[in-house]
C-alpha cells in the first residue's frame, strides 16, 4: 500500500484570462477524511478538483498531495483517482478493456484481474465484455468509477459521482467510498446534492465565486437546517 496522503492547498488561485475562477482556497484533507464541497454552478468546484488532479496549473498559491507540490510527477499522480463529469472512457473499447488500460497505466502487476475485481465491486462484471458505447449512462458511470478506483487510490477526487447512477449503483459507489475512506484515503467530493455529501463527509465546505464561504467539520453541521443555511450562503432565494 502506498503511504497515506494529505491534500493541502494554501491561497490557491486559478485565473482563466482575466476571470478568477478560484480566488484563494485553503483546505486540508487528512487521510480518512472526506471533504464535501457544495456550491452553485460556476462556483469553482470543478476547477478546484482539476487543480488537485494536476490537470491545471495554479495561477497563484500552492497545492500539494502528500507533501508533493502540484502539478506533480508520476509518483504523486499514482495516488490519485478522479471521477469527473466525463466518463474518461473509450466508447469503442469494452468495459474490461477500459479498466484494464487504466490498470496498465498504473503499473499494476495483474491488470486483468485488477480490472475484473474493480468491475465486480461496482456490480458491472457481467457487462465486462460489452463495448462501453452500448452501455446505459448509469452503467458507463459505474465503469468510469471502476476505472478510477482500480489502483486503490489514496486521494480520491469526485465530481458529481452519483450522476446517472441507479439505487444499486449509488449503493455500490457509497460502499466503495466508505471502504476507501476507512482504508485511509483522503476524499474530496463535489456535489449539488446536500444529502449525498453530508452522508459521507467528515468536513463540509460551501463555495461561491471561487471562495469557501463555509468550511466546517461535519459534526458542527445540523443536517436539518443545512439546506436553508446553504441557500442563504450561495444567495438562492427560498
Amino acid at each position, binding site marked *: 500500500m502506498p503511504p497515506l496522503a494529505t491534500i493541502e492547498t494554501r491561497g490557491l488561485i486559478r485565473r482563466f484570462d482575466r476571470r478568477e475562477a478560484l480566488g484563494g482556497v485553503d483546505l486540508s484533507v487528512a487521510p480518512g477524511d472526506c471533504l464535501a464541497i457544495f456550491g452553485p454552478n460556476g462556483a469553482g468546484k470543478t476547477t478546484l478538483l482539476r487543480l488537485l488532479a494536476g490537470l491545471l496549473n495554479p495561477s497563484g498559491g500552492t497545492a500539494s498531495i502528500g507533501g508533493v507540490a502540484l502539478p506533480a510527477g508520476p*509518483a504523486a*499522480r499514482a495516488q490519485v483517482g478522479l471521477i469527473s463529469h466525463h*466518463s*474518461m472512457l473509450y466508447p469503442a473499447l469494452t468495459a474490461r478493456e477500459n479498466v484494464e*488500460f487504466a490498470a*496498465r*497505466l*498504473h503499473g499494476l502487476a495483474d491488470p486483468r484481474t485488477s480490472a475484473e475485481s474493480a468491475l465486480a465491486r461496482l456490480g458491472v462484471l457481467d457487462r465486462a465484455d460489452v463495448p462501453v458505447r452500448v452501455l446505459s449512462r448509469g452503467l458507463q458511470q459505474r465503469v468510469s468509477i471502476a476505472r478510477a478506483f482500480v489502483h486503490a487510490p489514496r486521494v480520491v477526487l469526485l465530481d458529481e459521482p452519483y450522476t446517472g447512477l441507479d439505487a444499486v449503483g449509488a449503493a455500490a459507489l457509497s460502499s466503495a467510498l466508505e471502504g476507501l475512506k476507512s482504508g485511509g484515503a483522503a476524499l474530496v467530493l463535489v456535489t449539488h446534492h446536500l444529502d449525498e455529501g453530508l452522508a459521507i463527509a467528515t468536513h463540509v465546505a460551501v463555495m461561491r465565486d471561487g471562495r469557501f464561504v463555509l468550511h466546517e467539520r461535519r459534526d458542527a453541521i445540523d443536517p436539518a437546517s443545512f439546506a436553508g443555511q446553504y441557500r442563504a450562503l450561495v444567495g438562492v432565494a427560498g
Partner: protein
Amino acid sequence: MSEPPGVIAAAWAIARKDLTVELRTRAAFLSAAVFSVLAAAIFLYTWDPTAVASIDLAPGVLWVIFTFAGLLGLNRSFSAELADRAIDGLLIAPVRREAVFLGKAFANLIFVLGVQVVAIPTVVLFYNLSLGWGASAAIAGITVLASVGLVAVGTLFSAMAVNTRLAELLLPVLALPFFVPVVTAAAQATVLVINGRPLSGAVDWMRVLVAFDLVFVPACTMAYPFTIES
C-alpha cells in the same frame, strides 16, 4: 505498492489501446485508404501521358497521397481522446508525458504504414510501374524513414491543434511546412529507385530522412509536455 510503468511499457499500452480503437472503428483507416485510391485515380485521369512519363509522375503522386492521407489519421490521434475527456485519464495517470507522445506516435506510425500498404500498390498498378524486389525493398525503406519523420512532427502538431476550434485546418497549416523536407527527400529517392538508377543516389536522400528522424523524434518527444494545457 505498484510502481508506475516505465516509458516504453506505458507507450506500448497507449499505442495498443489506440490501435485497438482503430481496429474496432476503422474510421480513420478506411477514410485514408479510400482517399488514397481516389486520389491516385484522380491524378491518373488528369494526367497527360504524352507530356509526362508515368515514371516521372508516380513518385510525386505517391508522396502527395502519403502526406494528405497521413494528415487524416493524425487529425484523429488526439481528437479521439476528447470525446469523453479520455485525455484526462491519460494525463492523471502516473506515466511520463513523453510516454503519451511516444505511444500516440507509434500508433500513428502503424496507421501511416498501413495506408501506404494500400497506396503504394495502387500507384504501382495505376501507373504501370515495374518494380523488382530490390526496388520494392528500397521503397519500403524510404517509406519507413519518411513515415517516422512525418509521424513525429504530425503527432506533436496534432496535440497542439486539438484544443483549438479550427483543429482540422490548423494541423495542416502547422505541419505541412515541416513535411516539405521529408516529402522532398522521399520523392527524390523514389524517382531514383523507380528509374533504376544506382542505389547510392537514393541512399543520399535516405540519409536526409535519417537525419530528419534523428532530429525531430527526440525534439518532438521533448516538446510534447509543453503542449499540454496548463
